[in-house]
């Protein structure tokens, strides 16, 4: 499930910062452990000179915890469950009540921005005081100057990104919030130029020049400089999907963008505004000179969820006391009304995006109650019988056989480059967003990958490798066919076709496949095409004097594999075994000779090629009668027939 794909993001918070809003005797290690067990994972805790730094992973559903205040509130809910006293102390925020109107007309698009707050302030730009600098740097944020530092400090404390413009450089009567048009160019405050793709949220001045890339990064033409005297402190709560697209497409992964794309509670915007103003006053001689403009078209709706008491027990598997449930929910800022068989839960605004159904509420109850307090029970076995002699059984069996035949198993990537694809790539299953040009086409043969392994292991004189993996065939308007395929390579001096053939014959014989047919390959290769009766199975190819490969359709093997065993009673009468040496032209197949010999009498129970020497082939012939002892005369008659048949049909010489 996890493994990087839907991961959260990490935040660094100082213990001293946290304790401004959290009153508790818990040690940093206790806070860290209890949070990890019931809330967010504290990945690391680092000891500093006079402080501790927590590195915390925040999952994407909890942007409300991406701040000092968020963590303080959560810790205050969690710690008492472990018998440790803890209390959340909210920051003291004050509204200055200035009458002066905000001087710029802002035209918002409610589809793009949920809320805009803006204020004009007079400031003195300078370096931040030591403690602000140190706190920022320890939290992984670079300290630049007191103005920029305030915006970052507010974001980290409250959990809402903020922005400043130089009011005088902005020099406009109007700001228009709109989607960018494709091809518009911007220069960000770090001096890099980007061409916009369209759909980014931007602010344009009265000359229609872009002055901000909202929610992602400020621009060079409106950023504060060392000469800045007046600023607009600007807070924008944005539609998250626009932000993510802009940030990912342009490759600008600022902390503000990462937060903004998570859908932050717009009710936090005002806290961020008031806290920011107080910080400008404190560290930048800030003076608020306009009212706070508040454009708030998209207020969150309140939400009530019914949670059935029975459902709580069903999912947790235990009975949790109703009073305990209410206590837990209220500690997390939910409001509750106890009904007959259920609890009516009112969701706080910071959790509106995350809490949707009763299972979400049950998670809140269960995690704070403590997963370690829930017992472990194995689920019962079921009444559904299933055979263990299934495809997985055969896969395992054949892999084991290969291992004991001296083969080493490889796992190569399912995607290959154009060079490694067999045939025209227009027929390939193609990845539209490959990671590199080496991984573009879903392969239709394992052989090129295995040949790559051979060439990557040049120093090995003898190599026997195999792989069992899917190959892929494109289908129109449907999922591609996935064909499980078994392939192998033998590399050695004087590699022998018959070795590869013998291995395949033995392997398949062992799993009950006895009617294997080898025909001269119709492909442009020296080798054989394999069939089980009339069904095509695959190929053995001789690539070079020291290199042989084979590739078999494993699905067909699976269709024919059988674990069925048959007992045949022992023969009552002994066989007579004779060798017969025959010289024939090399255009004659051994199989044809064997068939010819066999067809002479049904007393011939087996014929096999026993030896070859120059042009001579020696066949071992087994004669046996189930009803009686064979005599020399019986055999001699058949032998005469065999010889005359071979002489007649194959111009054979008999030695």
């Amino acid at each position, binding site marked *: 499930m996890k493994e990087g*794909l839907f991961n959260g993001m990490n935040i660094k918070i100082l213990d001293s910062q946290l304790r401004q809003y959290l009153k508790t005797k818990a040690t940093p290690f206790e806070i860290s452990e209890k949070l990890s067990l019931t809330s967010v994972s504290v990945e690391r805790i680092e000891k500093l000179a006079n402080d501790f730094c927590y590195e915390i992973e925040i999952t994407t559903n909890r942007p409300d915890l991406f701040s000092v205040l968020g963590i303080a509130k959560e810790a205050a809910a969690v710690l008492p469950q472990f018998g440790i006293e803890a209390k959340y102390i909210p920051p003291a925020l004050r509204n200055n009540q200035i009458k002066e109107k905000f001087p710029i007309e802002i035209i918002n698009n409610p589809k793009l921005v949920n809320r805009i707050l803006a204020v004009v302030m007079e400031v003195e730009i300078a370096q931040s005081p030591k403690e602000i600098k140190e706190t920022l740097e320890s939290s992984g944020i670079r300290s630049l100057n007191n103005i920029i530092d305030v915006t970052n400090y507010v974001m980290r404390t409250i959990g809402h990104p903020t922005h400043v413009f130089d009011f005088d450089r902005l020099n406009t009567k109007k700001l228009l919030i709109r989607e960018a048009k494709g091809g518009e160019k911007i220069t960000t405050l770090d001096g890099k130029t980007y061409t916009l793709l369209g759909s980014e949220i931007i602010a344009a001045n009265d000359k229609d020049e872009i002055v901000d890339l909202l929610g992602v990064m400020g621009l060079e033409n409106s950023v504060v400089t060392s000469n800045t005297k007046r600023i607009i402190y600007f807070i924008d709560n944005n539609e998250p999907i626009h932000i993510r697209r802009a940030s990912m497409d342009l490759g600008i992964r600022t902390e503000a963008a990462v937060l903004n794309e998570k859908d932050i509670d717009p009710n936090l915007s005002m806290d961020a505004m008031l806290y920011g103003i107080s910080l400008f006053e404190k560290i930048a001689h800030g003076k608020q000179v306009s009212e706070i403009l508040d454009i708030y078209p998209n207020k969150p709706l309140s939400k009530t969820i019914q949670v059935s008491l029975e459902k709580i027990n069903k*999912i947790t*598997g235990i009975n949790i006391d109703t009073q305990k449930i209410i206590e837990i929910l209220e500690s997390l800022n939910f409001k509750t009304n106890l009904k007959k068989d259920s609890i009516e839960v009112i969701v706080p605004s910071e959790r509106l995006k995350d809490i949707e159904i009763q299972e979400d509420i049950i998670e809140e109850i269960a995690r704070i109650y403590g997963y370690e307090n829930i017992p472990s029970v194995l689920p019962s076995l079921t009444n559904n019988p299933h055979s263990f002699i299934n495809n997985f059984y055969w896969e395992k069996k054949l892999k084991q056989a290969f291992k004991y035949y001296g083969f080493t198993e490889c*796992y190569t990537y399912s*995607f290959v480059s154009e060079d490694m694809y067999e045939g025209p790539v227009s027929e390939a299953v193609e990845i539209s967003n490959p990671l590199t040009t080496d991984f573009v086409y879903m392969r239709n043969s394992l052989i090129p990958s295995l040949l790559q392994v051979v060439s990557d292991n040049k120093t090995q004189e003898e190599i026997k490798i195999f792989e069992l993996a899917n190959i892929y065939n494109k289908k129109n308007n449907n999922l591609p066919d996935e064909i499980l395929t078994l392939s192998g390579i033998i590399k050695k001096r004087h590699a022998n076709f018959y070795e590869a053939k013998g291995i395949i014959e033995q392997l398949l014989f062992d799993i009950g496949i006895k009617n294997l047919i080898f025909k001269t390959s119709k492909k442009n290769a020296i080798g054989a095409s394999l069939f089980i009766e009339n069904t095509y199975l695959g190929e053995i190819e001789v690539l070079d004097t020291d290199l042989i490969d084979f590739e078999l359709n494993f699905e067909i093997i699976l269709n024919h594999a059988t674990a069925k065993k048959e007992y045949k009673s022992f023969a009552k009468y002994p066989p007579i075994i004779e060798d017969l040496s025959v010289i024939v032209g090399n255009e004659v197949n051994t199989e044809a000779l064997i068939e010819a010999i066999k067809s002479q009498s049904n007393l011939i129970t087996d014929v096999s090629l026993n030896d070859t020497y120059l042009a001579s082939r020696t066949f071992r012939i087994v004669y046996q009668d189930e009803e009686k002892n064979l005599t020399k005369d019986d055999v001699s008659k058949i032998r005469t027939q065999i010889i005359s048949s071979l002489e007649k049909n194959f111009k054979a010489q008999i030695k």
Partner: protein
Amino acid sequence: MEEELIGIKNTALSFILEAEDLQSLEDTKLQFLGRSGKLTLAIKEITKIPLEKRPAVGILANEVKKTIEEALLQQEKLLSKKKNENILKKIDVTNPGVKPTLGHLHLVTQALEEISTIFESIGFSKEKYPEIDWDYYAFSALNFPKDHPARDDWETFFIKGEEDKKMGKILLSPHTSTGQVREIEKGKLPIRMLNIAKCYRRQSDVSHTPMFHQFEGLVVDKNISITHLKGTLDYFVKSYFGDKRKSRIRPYHFQFTEPSFEVDVTCGVCLGKGCRLCKAGWLEMGGAGMVHPNVLKAGGLDPKIYTGFAFGWGVERVLMMKAGLEIDDLRLLYSNKLEFLSQF
């Protein structure tokens, strides 16, 4: 006649003593005691001598025969012993044996066989689903909203071609969870499913390969609760990692489970005390959770009646978490260096 018998005895005894191997001893035996051996022939002659002398000669002949037989037996023992000594002297037991070539199964195969056996022993049955699948099974049916980041081009591999109106794009499964709704849709309850398969994500670094393997468990039944997830997890951890390792679940977030968990196992090196390889004694193994009601619904089940749990863990990850396998770059697993593969 008596002299002849004594002469035979002496000749025989000297032949016997001079025999250097069992074969020449056997020849000597035939020469004297065989059907036409010297002693046999001499004894046949006894009938030709006068009757009164016969008993004395008969007794002598018997003594001669007995003496020769005893001498033969004696020498045979001696020579047998000598023969064995000669053979044993020729074996240097420290010389190398004649070994058949031994191949190697890939570490991933070895891990997935072990994992399968553990889950099969508690009633899970192994299933297989498409590796290349619709967006629907990978995301939509698993409660991912339309614009979820996991669907972005930079996380998941997509296949070129037209989008299906209902099923969406075709993609390489980014997780084994793609099998969940496919399994529920079969309508065969209760479910105890295990799915081990190749997965693909757009990532490549020391701890990620673009192709990897996951194993997914899905249990759906009436009254399945968190207790059962914990029970299954404990059973797996103890069976796979050993009795000394412990497991725990912590809150996490996934779209398709609610509640969702992160699963930790105590570190194999410090066994939970805390060391530089782990986080305060714990290592993350992967995700798990109670099946989201929307996922049950997508598969056609009523979440009021049925509940379930699911987990999906990385095969490579649990392999690395086993003590003894400190592989510092995961990409080595798929490098197919024979020097690496032949170690296992």
